[in-house]
């Protein structure tokens, strides 16, 4: 059953510098639907509007035309049913790791004790136990990104929106974190929408991969990923995995990926 429906969404940014008005067509006529409990991954070239699409789903930006329905209702703003991991961690620098993770819970009015417990759970889950009282400035970029993950998980949303959460990580940590995400997600199976540039990451995590064309972004291709869950690291050496990797690579390579397929 589809929980999120994107219907003919376009987005044009208008920037004014003095008298010069510049229009950027970020997205053009994107239609898509995501099923409940589905792990959906969007890949596409830089600047093709992935983050923009995610922000519209979160409710931070409105589409220029078309509409986005969440459980049948148009999105009017952010809600506790969605949790976001931003492309750049965007932690609150004056809050410790623990307080950052508790932030969303505080806003929802969750009591102090439960906040503590949940924060501890998710900090542990992203492997940052022992860093609870550190400030973001004392963490590496990758660690900050993991705090961002914990912050989004902590509100336990029905839908997770993840914008390149592992972009800042080294290859090795990235693999570990992908495995972790797959495991954590597997526990609650909330709907997830993840953006990445990394084809292998997409294949490892996704039930379905949406390949977007270059700007203005449109849906170029949709690829179903058949691998069973839970997925383990040895999946990466599976011949079918390698084959799909090539296929996706091909689709991505050309700006007009959709027509090639």
């Amino acid at each position: 059953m589809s929980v999120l429906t994107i219907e003919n969404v376009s987005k044009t940014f208008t920037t004014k510098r003095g008298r010069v008005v510049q229009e950027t067509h970020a997205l053009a006529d994107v239609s898509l639907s995501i099923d409940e409990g589905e792990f959906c991954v969007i890949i596409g070239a830089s600047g093709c509007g992935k983050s923009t699409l995610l922000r519209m789903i979160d409710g931070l930006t409105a589409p220029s035309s078309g509409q986005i329905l969440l459980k049948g209702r148009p999105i009017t703003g952010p809600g506790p049913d969605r949790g976001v991991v931003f492309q750049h961690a965007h932690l609150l620098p004056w809050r410790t790791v623990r307080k950052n993770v508790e932030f969303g819970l505080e806003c929802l009015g969750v009591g102090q004790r439960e906040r503590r417990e949940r924060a501890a759970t998710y900090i542990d889950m992203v492997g940052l136990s022992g860093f609870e009282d550190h400030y973001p400035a004392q963490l590496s970029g990758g660690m900050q990104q993991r705090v961002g993950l914990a912050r989004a998980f902590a509100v336990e949303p029905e839908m997770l929106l993840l914008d390149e959460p592992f972009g800042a990580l080294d290859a090795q940590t990235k693999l570990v974190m992908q495995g972790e995400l797959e495991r954590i997600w597997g526990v609650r199976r909330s709907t997830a929408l993840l953006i990445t540039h990394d084809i292998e990451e997409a294949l490892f995590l996704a039930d379905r991969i949406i390949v977007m064309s270059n700007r203005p972004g449109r849906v170029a291709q949709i690829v179903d990923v058949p691998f069973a869950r839970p997925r383990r690291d040895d999946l990466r050496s599976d011949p079918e995995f390698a084959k799909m990797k090539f296929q996706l690579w091909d689709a991505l390579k050309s700006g007009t990926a959709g027509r090639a397929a």
Partner: protein
Amino acid sequence: MASTTKPAAATFDPTGPMLMWTLRITSVIALLAAWEWYGRKPESFTIAPVSEVATAMWDGFASGDFGRALAGTMLTMVVGYVIAAVIGVGVGLWIGVSRYAQNTIEPLVHAGYATPVSLLIPILGIYTGLELRGRIILVVLWCVFEILVNTSTGIKEVPPALIDVGKSFNASKFDLYRKVVLPAARPYIFLGLKIGVGRAIRGAVTAELLLSAANLGRVLLGAQSTFDIPTLLAGIVLTMLLGLVLMRLASLVERRSLAYRTA
């Protein structure tokens, strides 16, 4: 190689602070000695020797004059500063968050910010009164704009991304200001408050010199018109020390509360 340089550095390290202190103290002594020598030259009229200044300082405190003056100046300064801080941060926040205030009040603030308050003293005196109230109002005028402009700048400079974080995590409007905007603007606000301390001291002493003479200003004026150079210099040194101590204190408070940035 590495193993030979390392112990050397290690043995040098403990002497580091000591060497620094030795040099610091030596240079202070050298400075005082030079001052004394220069002040003792018969043609040095406006510079009294440091020993006489120290005596004047001692006498000033022993007679209670300096203590009273210092207390009076600090009272003026503190009352004025607190009022300025409340108004400055309050109105600064308002300008920062409200389009309306930005259009109506901000131009006035900028005009006030650019006006040298001391030029207005004779005119202001009529409206503010010449005694304590007038001096306090001058202190407020002296530092309120600094605090205000810094505060409103801080609010405007809050990274939009952090606001998005707040919204995205369902912060209410109140929470958004309390938990995101205000803390994000804090470095600016504290900077304004810190600069404000220095300006409040200058404002207090200037008001005491130019509005109606009182406290430290009166000490300085009295010493000046009677050519009591040692007391004059002692008063100046005292004013400088007051500034130094309070600014240090302000920096300390600022560093403490913004520790997260460099921690």
